[in-house]
């Protein structure tokens, strides 16, 4: 079922997002000049430093005034403005289609919000889902890319039972260069989340993990004798849920979250748990800002 593109981002949110900027903790070489000041010295109006001329340098950058005064050739260096490669990848497995609102909807909203921020800053933005559907995700730049992005997001359904590792691997194969990667997932993969994150780090990407969970997963409203069926693999688990089991489950959830957090901290991955009952505006303007994803 297609989502209405306007549902993902409200006009108020869009106006608020326009004032934000994606932050990368690493310096990446952009292909096009962007609106971002790079640590690399380059062609811009903003002076950065001087250095001695070495043969081969662009003569246009020699500061002739200094040469007149000091009789030495110095090259005038400017901060180069460059674009940022921003990737938002969404876990579109069936497990994401859970909760009210669904984790998948929240994930799409987050991805759209971050993507729009990138588009506003002339970054190179690609918002895609894991799996085959990710291949047709457009690479966008500039504000005009908003609607194609939303169009793409609304067209993709959470029916792709791709494992996290396979999905990331596929993503990396299709993506060249580094950049900022935001993985939006519930990380509930029976194969584990670790290998997927390791692959992203291995590409020297600036990795952010938005861990989306619904309140029903953290504190399930289940009691009694139940037969739990995994929506992804139809695996059934018979269980008698009482307070004891429930307490154990909650502990397991906390352990799970703790293990992810620890894993990410060790590898400089920014880990941000997101509950679906928290509005996207709050997540973007508060949580993501606090954790340095945007500013």
């Amino acid at each position, binding site marked *: 079922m297609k989502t209405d593109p306007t549902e993902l981002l409200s006009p108020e949110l869009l106006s608020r997002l326009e004032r934000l900027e994606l932050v990368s903790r690493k310096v990446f070489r952009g292909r096009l000049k962007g609106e971002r000041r790079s640590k690399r010295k380059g062609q811009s109006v903003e002076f950065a430093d001087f250095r001695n001329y070495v043969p081969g340098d662009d003569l246009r950058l020699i500061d002739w005034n200094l040469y007149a005064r000091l009789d030495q050739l110095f090259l005038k260096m400017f901060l180069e403005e460059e674009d940022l490669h921003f990737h938002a990848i969404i876990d579109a497995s069936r497990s*994401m289609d859970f909760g009210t609102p669904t984790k998948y909807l929240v994930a799409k909203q987050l991805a759209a919000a971050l993507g729009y921020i990138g588009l506003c800053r002339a970054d190179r933005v690609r918002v895609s889902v894991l799996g085959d559907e990710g291949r047709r995700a457009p690479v966008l730049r500039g504000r005009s890319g908003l609607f194609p992005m939303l169009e793409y997001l609304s067209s993709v359904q959470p029916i792709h039972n791709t494992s996290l590792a396979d999905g990331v691997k596929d993503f990396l194969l299709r993506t060249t260069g580094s950049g900022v990667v935001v993985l939006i997932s519930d990380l509930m993969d029976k194969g584990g989340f670790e290998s997927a994150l390791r692959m992203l780090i291995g590409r020297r990407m600036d990795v952010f993990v938005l861990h989306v969970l619904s309140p029903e997963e953290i504190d399930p409203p289940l009691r009694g004798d139940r037969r739990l069926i*995994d929506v992804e693999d139809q695996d059934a*688990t018979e269980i008698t849920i009482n307070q004891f089991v429930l307490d154990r489950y909650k502990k397991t959830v906390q352990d799970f979250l703790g293990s992810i957090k620890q894993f990410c901290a060790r590898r400089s991955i920014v880990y941000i748990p997101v509950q679906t009952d928290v509005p996207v505006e709050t997540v973007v303007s508060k949580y993501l800002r606090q954790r340095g994803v945007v500013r």
Partner: protein
Amino acid sequence: MIDENLMIAGNLMIDAKLLAISWIATLTPPWIAGLAAIPIGITLLYFLKLRREPVEVPSTYLWATTIEDLHVNSLLQRLRRSLLLFLQLLAVALAALALFRPGIRGKENELDRQIFLLDTSASMQATDGDESGRTRLEVAKKRIAERIDAFSDDDLGMLITFDDRPQTLQSFTGDRRRLLEALERAEQSTRGTEVIGALRAADGLANPRRTSEAGTTDVPVAQAKPADLVIYSDGGFPPVTEFSLGNLEPTYIATGQGSSANLAITAFSAQRNVERPGFVEVFATLTNLSDQSASTTTTLRGDGEFLDAQAVELEPREEKGISFELETDAATQLEMRIDSKDMLAIDNTAYTALTPLRTVNLLIVTEGNRPLETGLGTSKVAGISRTDVVPPSYLATEAYRERAKAGTDDLIIYDRCRPSTMPRTNTFFIGALPPDARANGDEAGSDEAGDDEAVGNEAKGGDSEGIGSGDESTADDSATNVDAATDGDAATDGDTAASQTWRYAGAAEPLAIIDLDRSHPLLQYVELYSLLIVEGRPLVGPVGTTELVGADIGTVMAIAPRDGYQDLVLGFDLITQSDDGGTQANTNWYAERSWPVFLLNVLRHLAGAAEASSASSYPPGTTVRLRVPSQVDEVTIRRGDGGFEKRFPVGNSGLVEFIDTEKPGNYEVRAGDRLIELFSVNLFSPRESDLAVAEELEIGYEPVEGETAVSEGRREYWRWLLLGMLGLLGAEWYLYGRRVS
């Protein structure tokens, strides 16, 4: 504050004592095993019936991790944590507990042996046993049953009921069923209360007797077995002094509310007016046995029909007599009733009866005695007697012997003569002494009797010259019959002989009457002080002789018992023979009004026509001995209300013993269609009618405090357990329904 805490702690300790829960094992081991298998079955069924509701979850990843370690002991976890299963098992556990009938016993320190003394006396009929109007006996039986129910397997019980006599309904047994059956047999009686017999019956095993052989140590003949003595009574009996409790631990369960108002008829009789024989005077005594004044009406009925009524007002504890006067000649059965209702019904009705005068057979042996014949000729006497007059020579005939032996006559009057042996009937000797009792054997008709020609009118012995001169001739006629008394030296005889025979204690001489036993029925309404008696001789009778008339010279009229009969002896003649062979009066009694009255008394009381006044009243439960005419072989005894009728054979001595006197009422004794006797049974016991419950008993100078039996009963909890079980089942189903929905 500290004291309060201590008190609370003390109360808790007491409560803890009271809360000693006992169990009645109603199941045999196979049943218990089956019961134990039920929880296992339920556990299995629980898993079989388990219906798991499928639920889709985003991932079972975390759930699987959660229950991973639970799988190791998942069964135990399920058992431990399943509320439903827990509730079901709890329900079954409660049901199982209920089967064991848990309850609280009243007392902690009971002995293994318990003797229940149950008062069944009349006062236990009072309907103030509890608020619902049950009788004291019913309440007491219920309490005993509760106590028996509370028996443990080691307990032994014994049940004794008592009214005016004890009855052991069940000796020591541990069989609760037998005890309860015995308790069921305990019936309300209408008798008085006498507890000593029951105490002695209970005493046997607890206080065994001791040997008392000379020279040996005083040892008990058996090992003493102490026992609890639980007395269920209202305490309506006097302190028991001739009993020692010894190893008996007495407990007195006071039964009844105690403050009950009760009006009782404590006396009721009817008497024909001597001067106006057609009139009957009825007397009754009413007693108010409560602490509040009372007013009521009393109704008198005769033969079931209303005769009269009176209103009575009684102050607290007052006793008041009331009387009625009726006009009736016939035999009448009277019934008096208090019209108001109170707690004890049995004393609100009283019975009495007036019997018709009975016709008696009278034999007079005389040579002629006009005063006697005149006295017996009055219409009153003639109406109740059939008289044969025979001369003394008749005594020697076979006809007389047969008659004397058969006891055909109700009374034989010997006037100045005596038989050789005493007849089998009552006798009245005038101016003569009965023969020696030692000679009065079965050989009554033997030769010796023939030798002792029975004409013994030697009363005027040889030393009575002063009176008349004709004595000797008669003395000569019966020369062989020499009375010891004629010699005047009878006092020299051996004491044994003297104590069994009648004799004269002195010579004939003029006398003046100085004493009269008016209380004796024979001298009822008789006035003798104005008598003139020419001469008489003092009498000495055998053992048991009662002096009726005393004169200045000694006893001149006496009566003595003889093998169930009575002999009346008059120490002076009525007439004597004059020298010319005629008769002359020895006394002016025949001219007195008291003479026919005396003769009527003799006929009534000595000849057995005594029923002229009120019929005898007996307390309930007593044995009534009835004397019936000897020619009657069988009598029918019937109660006035028709509730009882039975035939009884008459014994050899003309006695009928009647023991079915439990129920108050008028009883009539009939021989065929002829009414021969009436008697009544009445409670007439102020002690039984007094419904106050004694606060304590005194047994062997030891006070026994009364206990309110409220805390003493067994409190059953199995019903509550079953209710709890049903509640749990309901909760279980509710939870189950909520889970699967």
